[in-house]
């Protein structure tokens, strides 16, 4: 009986696990969500001493998480851009999923940011008294606006739930929103371009941190553009990866192979471009930017261990060039395992890049008599991290179960059944 509780909410013609199985799947995530909520409550009530951040590691796991999920969530804007503006119609098969991923990533990031700042009650000061020269201002404005856009983009997906669309007005609103979606796709692209970039700029402008500082164009350091490019490169990869994972977990085919191929091809091209520019940038930094600020670049890697040159190699070659090549070669790309593996590597590469800019920048000393410091997050930080992951999992799972994330699913299921 329990298994049939939510049948009326599930779209017709697709197969979903019985409700009890779904509960079983959701329960651990919900538990993680509760633990995370408790950790967040502690931080909000008592202050940030619950974290292991300190005056040197002013940013920790959370900012790393924010940067990473926002890079990975770039799939939302970029898929929308490809679909609505460049008219890559096959991507219609993943756009809803991409929107939900984007929503989850951005809302998770904003939520963690609200905990990460010391005085969340004053968050609106950034809007009311903005310092437009700060990259963080740009980030705050764009992320907030883009989150709004994502919410608006999510509305049609949401309204198409079987029970909701029974009310004619819901469907009508969905229809009209969908008709103007290209506007949101364009706005989303504009906003994403600026905040992905300014997240990179965030570190690139730090004059006092020669490890992160980069020369740039006008007010934007090179990291601005590299972050945009890397996010665009890895966004489709992440969409492919999540779709692949969803297929694995649900055991159903959700999108056609051509969609994977399109995503992989686009990701591969952009990744290659990114690796090229990243190499240029790194060479410029090693030979000019850093020495000019008084820090020969080799000093940054003297500490070895966790922060040795292997990071540079892994970031650019192992997790940049290699997946780019795999994704670009059609024969390799055609193999699902290789394609998803390369997508995962690309995602890891960008994650590592964000790690380098947040954590390694802070780990390295600037003053000659200071030393390298290491940091390990507290359980509260991990739990809050888990909160975002669990929240994402739950929102995605609920969306998958009750909304139509993959419009091709029914067709593919019928094709399968016919066989």
């Amino acid at each position, binding site marked *: 009986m329990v298994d049939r509780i939510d049948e009326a909410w599930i779209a017709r013609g697709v197969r979903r696990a019985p409700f009890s199985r779904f509960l079983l799947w959701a329960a651990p995530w919900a538990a993680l969500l509760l633990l995370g909520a408790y950790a967040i409550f502690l931080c909000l009530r*008592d*202050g*940030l*001493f619950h974290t292991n*951040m*300190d*005056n*040197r*590691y*002013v*940013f920790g796991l959370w900012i790393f998480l924010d940067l990473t999920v926002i890079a990975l969530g770039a799939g939302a804007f970029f898929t929308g851009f490809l679909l609505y503006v460049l008219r890559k119609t096959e991507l219609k098969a993943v756009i809803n999923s991409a929107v939900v991923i984007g929503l989850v990533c951005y809302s998770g990031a904003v939520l963690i940011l609200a905990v*990460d*700042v*010391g*005085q969340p009650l*004053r*968050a609106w*000061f*950034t809007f*009311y*008294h*903005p*310092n437009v*020269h*700060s*990259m*963080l*201002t740009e980030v*705050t404005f764009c992320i907030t606006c883009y989150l709004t856009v994502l919410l608006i983009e999510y509305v049609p997906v949401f309204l198409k739930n079987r029970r909701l669309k029974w009310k004619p007005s819901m469907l009508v609103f969905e229809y009209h929103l969908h008709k103007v979606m290209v506007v949101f796709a364009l706005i989303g692209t504009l906003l994403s371009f600026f905040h992905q970039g300014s997240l990179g700029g*965030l*570190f690139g*402008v*730090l*004059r*006092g*941190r*020669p490890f992160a500082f980069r020369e740039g164009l006008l007010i934007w350091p090179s990291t601005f553009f590299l972050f945009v490019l890397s996010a665009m490169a890895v966004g489709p990869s992440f969409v492919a990866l999540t779709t692949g994972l969803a297929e694995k977990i649900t055991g159903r085919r959700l999108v056609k192979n051509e969609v994977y191929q399109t995503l992989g091809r686009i990701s591969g091209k952009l990744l290659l471009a990114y690796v090229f520019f990243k190499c240029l940038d790194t060479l410029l930094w090693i030979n000019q930017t850093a*020495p000019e*600020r*008084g*820090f*020969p670049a080799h*000093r940054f890697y003297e500490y070895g261990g966790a922060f040795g040159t292997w990071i540079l190699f892994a970031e650019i070659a192992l997790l940049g060039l290699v997946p780019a090549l795999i994704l670009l070669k059609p024969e390799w790309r055609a193999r699902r395992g290789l394609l998803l593996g390369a997508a995962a590597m690309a995602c890891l590469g960008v994650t590592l890049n964000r790690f380098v800019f947040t954590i390694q*920048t*802070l780990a390295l000393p*600037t*003053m*000659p*008599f*200071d030393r390298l*410091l290491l940091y390990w997050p507290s359980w509260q930080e991990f739990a809050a991290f888990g909160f975002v992951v669990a929240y994402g999992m739950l929102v995605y799972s609920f969306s998958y179960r009750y909304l139509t994330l993959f419009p091709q699913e029914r067709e593919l299921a019928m094709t399968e059944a016919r066989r």
Partner: protein
Amino acid sequence: MRKLGAENKTARYAMLIDLDRCNGCGACMVACAVENNVPPPQPSATPRTGLNWLRVFRLNTGGRDAFIPVMCMQCGDETPCQSVCPQKAVEFDPATGIVGQIPERCLGCRYCMAACPYQARVFNWWDPQWPAGMEQALNPRVSARQRGTVEKCNFCHGRWQAALEKAAQDGESGPVRYTPACAEACPAQAIRFGDLNDEEFAAECRDSGAFRLLESLGTGPKVFYRTSRAEVREATRGFGEVKRG
């Protein structure tokens, strides 16, 4: 914000610290904390989470211990922290040359701390707490900061304001003279406070023996150091300067 009334002359307050005289007693750190209502350490605070507007580092130079007091350098126009604050909680006061940190405005994002190469900024990880009753002994000239905000040295702004108040009473005009708590406290008179618009003081700071921390970053700090010990000079040089020198 940057406009100055015509009748005001400006000051560029600065410090000159003689490392040879500093014996690392820490009087400046304690005096600073007491003056500026910085709370005493929380039981679980560490050097990494502690609240010090002024921190004396012990240098291991092989021989006799050397010490280097580091506070906010009140960087010049290239202030790395000011431009990054998303909501103008950091500002450069053109009338005094002091970089102000306004806790009432501060969001606690700590971006400015990441931007500061001198580690001069500290964050209130805890609610500020004093042992019961000790809050009666707070300095009336300085307000206590809330948890979740960044704070740092502002060359004892409370004392500057007191000096202004007195000057207004006495009908004096122009930049005021005052002494920050650390300079007052230093038993060895290693810390000297002055105005770079004062030719004599500026000349001493420009002296060939004087240097600033991480000069190669181009931040234009207004805290100058002096030492005659070669090994101490070596240990405080930026990496780039080592290469050049």
